[in-house]
């Protein structure tokens, strides 16, 4: 085995290594073409990889990983590149393994409610493929029309409807995975619980640091018989927050409860043309779903609760088209910010649901002190905030202040007993905050998981962990792979 830890391979070397595996067309080394892959949804940070390799099968992924390992190159897996935390940010001395070509649904088993899919399949395409049979795939990140299942698995993506239905981790039951040494392993159990440690659950949300998923088996659900949606406006986020708590306290588990504040409503109205009122302090968009009589009851009860909590107006869509328009407004909220601000930071923090009103006030005060505006559009049912810190990059110092406010919001979430990310992941963006959320020993314990899977730390180095850690040798009979000693330097 060659140890080339010091030498940076040339484009010709890289093409010679990877083109035979995936074909010349699917091995990118031209600097101009590499630019597309310099960042994911976190566009402010860019790193050009040495090469981008686009395999079409599990075997090609495994061969690519083995070849990268021979040259001691770091490996960053990438789906659609929509992640907002820089989870797919390339590493300078590494390659990107893009999984977009692996975009087939391999099989659907309706009776057992399972589908086997490749990682490049677009989230929404899973539901589209099975909708005719009355089934769907539940996790629905707002980017679901473009994000991939592989990326969802890496980030444990959520979405509006995870309040009732859970996150990606609750819906992925098994996977074919290429490990850091190029070995192919099956994790989880397609039907029954897998025997042994629950490696499947820990792989989901591991941000590409434990393995590359090349096939995933997901649960598919029967479409609910009835979905009732309503949209309610309130004088302020206080009444809207109280309404959410009250609905939940009445024993209702909504499928989704989304909150938007005045600034978010303004942006959404300008961008999408929905006819939402602009003279309100907050709005809730809520779904309840399930068997017909149950839903009729809970929807009526929820509307009554909203009214008693001080709702200014409650609207019920008259048909599916109007309902779809309401949700389109909500799901397009981030993109809509461009209508009210030249630039914005998207934040993703979590707090206990009961603290929503207090935390929103603290965030507003914080932003006010810095002369900035914050729009809020978020998953109120599970306390997952998405404050959008608005700024103008042309004004000197404003970008920096916005970044500081954005970071300070995470500290508020930590102070209230919450988390620094509910669904966007830690990635490159928030690694620095992990040391504020967790203690050193906590992170060391998580790092052990990484070392068990990838002792050379070749997969997505520099993400999640705030400081570099080595893996060290495993004592006892479990001998490390010889190439471990040619491991990569770098953070993480």
């Amino acid at each position, binding site marked *: 085995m060659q140890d080339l830890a010091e030498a940076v391979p040339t484009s010709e070397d890289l093409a010679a290594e990877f083109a035979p595996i995936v074909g010349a067309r699917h091995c990118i080394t031209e600097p101009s073409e590499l630019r597309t892959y310099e960042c994911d949804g976190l566009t402010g940070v860019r790193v050009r990889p040495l090469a981008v390799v686009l395999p079409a099968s599990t075997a090609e992924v495994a061969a690519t990983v083995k070849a990268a390992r021979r040259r001691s190159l770091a490996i960053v897996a990438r789906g659609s590149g929509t992640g907002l935390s820089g989870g797919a940010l390339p590493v300078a001395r590494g390659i990107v393994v893009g999984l977009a070509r692996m975009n087939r649904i391999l099989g659907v088993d309706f009776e057992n409610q399972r589908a086997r899919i490749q990682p490049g399949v677009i989230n929404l395409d899973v539901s589209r493929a099975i909708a005719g049979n009355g089934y769907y795939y539940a996790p629905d990140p707002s980017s679901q029309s473009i994000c991939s299942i592989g990326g969802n698995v890496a980030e444990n993506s959520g979405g509006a409807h995870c309040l009732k239905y859970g996150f990606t981790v609750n819906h992925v039951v098994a996977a074919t995975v290429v490990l850091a040494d190029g070995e192919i392993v099956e994790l989880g159990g397609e039907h029954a619980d897998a025997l042994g440690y629950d490696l499947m659950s820990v792989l*989901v949300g591991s941000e590409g640091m434990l393995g590359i998923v090349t096939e995933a088996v997901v649960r598919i659900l029967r479409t609910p018989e009835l979905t009732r949606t309503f949209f309610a406006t309130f004088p302020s986020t206080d009444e809207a927050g109280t309404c959410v708590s009250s609905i939940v306290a009445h024993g209702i588990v909504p499928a989704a409860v989304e909150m938007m504040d005045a600034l978010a409503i303004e942006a959404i109205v300008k961008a999408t043309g929905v006819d939402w009122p602009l003279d309100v302090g907050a709005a809730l968009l809520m779904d309840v779903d399930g068997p017909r009589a149950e839903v009729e009851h809970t929807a009526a009860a929820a509307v009554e609760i909203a009214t008693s909590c001080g709702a200014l107006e409650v609207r019920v869509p008259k048909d599916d088209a109007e309902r779809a328009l309401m949700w389109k407004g909500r799901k397009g909220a981030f993109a809509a910010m461009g209508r009210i601000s030249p630039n914005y930071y998207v934040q993703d923090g979590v707090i206990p649901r009961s603290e929503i009103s207090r935390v929103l006030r603290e965030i507003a005060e914080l932003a006010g002190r810095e002369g900035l505006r914050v729009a809020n559009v978020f998953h109120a049912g599970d*306390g997952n905030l998405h404050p959008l810190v608005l700024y103008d990059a042309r004004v000197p110092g404003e970008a920096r202040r916005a970044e500081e406010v954005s970071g300070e919001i995470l500290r508020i979430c930590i102070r209230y007993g919450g988390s620094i990310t509910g669904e966007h992941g830690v990635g490159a963006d928030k690694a620095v905050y992990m040391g504020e959320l967790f203690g050193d020993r906590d992170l060391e314990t998580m790092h052990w998981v990484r070392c068990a899977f990838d002792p050379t730390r070749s997969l997505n180095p520099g993400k999640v962990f705030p400081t570099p850690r080595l893996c060290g040798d495993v004592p006892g009979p479990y001998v490390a792979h010889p190439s471990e000693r040619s491991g990569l330097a770098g953070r993480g």
Partner: protein
Amino acid sequence: MSAVSFDAGESVAPADLEEAAEALREAASRHRTVSFLGGGTELGLGYPPQRVDVLVRTAGLTRIVEYAPADMTVTVEAGLTLAALQERLEPQGQRLALDPPLATAATLGGLLATNAFGPRRARFGSLRDLIVGVSLIRADGARVRGGGKVVKNVAGFDLPKLMVGALGTLGMIATATFRLHPLPAAVRLLRVADCEAARVRALCRASVAAQLEPAALLALRAGGHYSLHVLFEGFEAGVAEQAARFARLAEASGAAAEPLEGAATLAALDREARVHGSVRLRLAAPPSALETLDRAALLPLEAAFGEARAVLYPSLGVAFMGGFPADPAAAVAAIGQARAALESVGGHLVVTEAAGDVAQGVDPFGTLPGSFALMAQLKARFDPERRLNRGRFLGNL
């Protein structure tokens, strides 16, 4: 209750988590092996520990660390029993949506370590779907945590779920945080008596097709047939309508669904079948292979076991069987055949309790998964001296 017990050199019952951490630090410094004991309801699961120098009993760790009804989360110490927790949640109209048998004895730590579940798993998932945070005492005595106390959180690797089903071999569960669900305002329980396996499967499929959402489906085996129990939970209008529609589905298939009184009935039926026998098994197969589970596993096992009882969760493809085999050799042979049949359709058979010649004759788990090498690596990182529940886990880890 389990008939199994561990012989330990020394037994300690820490009064709080710091004392528990001290016990593990002490054991670490003297290279002593450690096992854990909660309610002792599942001691038969896995291989017997190869050596137990210190037995840490969690009976003193019963605090509710934090209960936030408005957030529907609760953090508890590992030694608290499930029944004690539910009693505390009930006045707020909430529950942990987990219904294994023996809730009065079983502790949350033990339930997590064994990944225990009951028939409501069909609706609410297993503990991996309910746990949101964990704090551990590691093999070296360090106290660490993963996850958090909010229900939505993707910061860091998922240590809470990794502890579920790990049989205490990666660390001692000190506290755990769970998401809670509302107690239902109304329930309906229906029974369809005397079904063949094919009808049980057909009614499950029909129920899904009709977009019904039962909280639990449970089929009790008796005389080669099943009585299928269906539980609906929710608001009165919803459960009444769902029960009526299920009754029509049953009627359309040529059977009759009769109403039974209360959810307690279901729990009692489940317990009677699951907490039974000197040999107990958990069997799994895809729900579509219910007839295989019935004919190639439960039927021959029933013949080899004396006084066999079995219960099936048909929508999950899981069954539990227990009995008193008079001829251990015949029982061992039947278990082997049933396991082969289940593994061939992607299922498994786990011996959750056995004694004497049966325990000697069968492996508790069956074929090792292809990811076993990774599991061994994980164990080596978390517990390099193999001091925690030595040898008890899959592959004698």
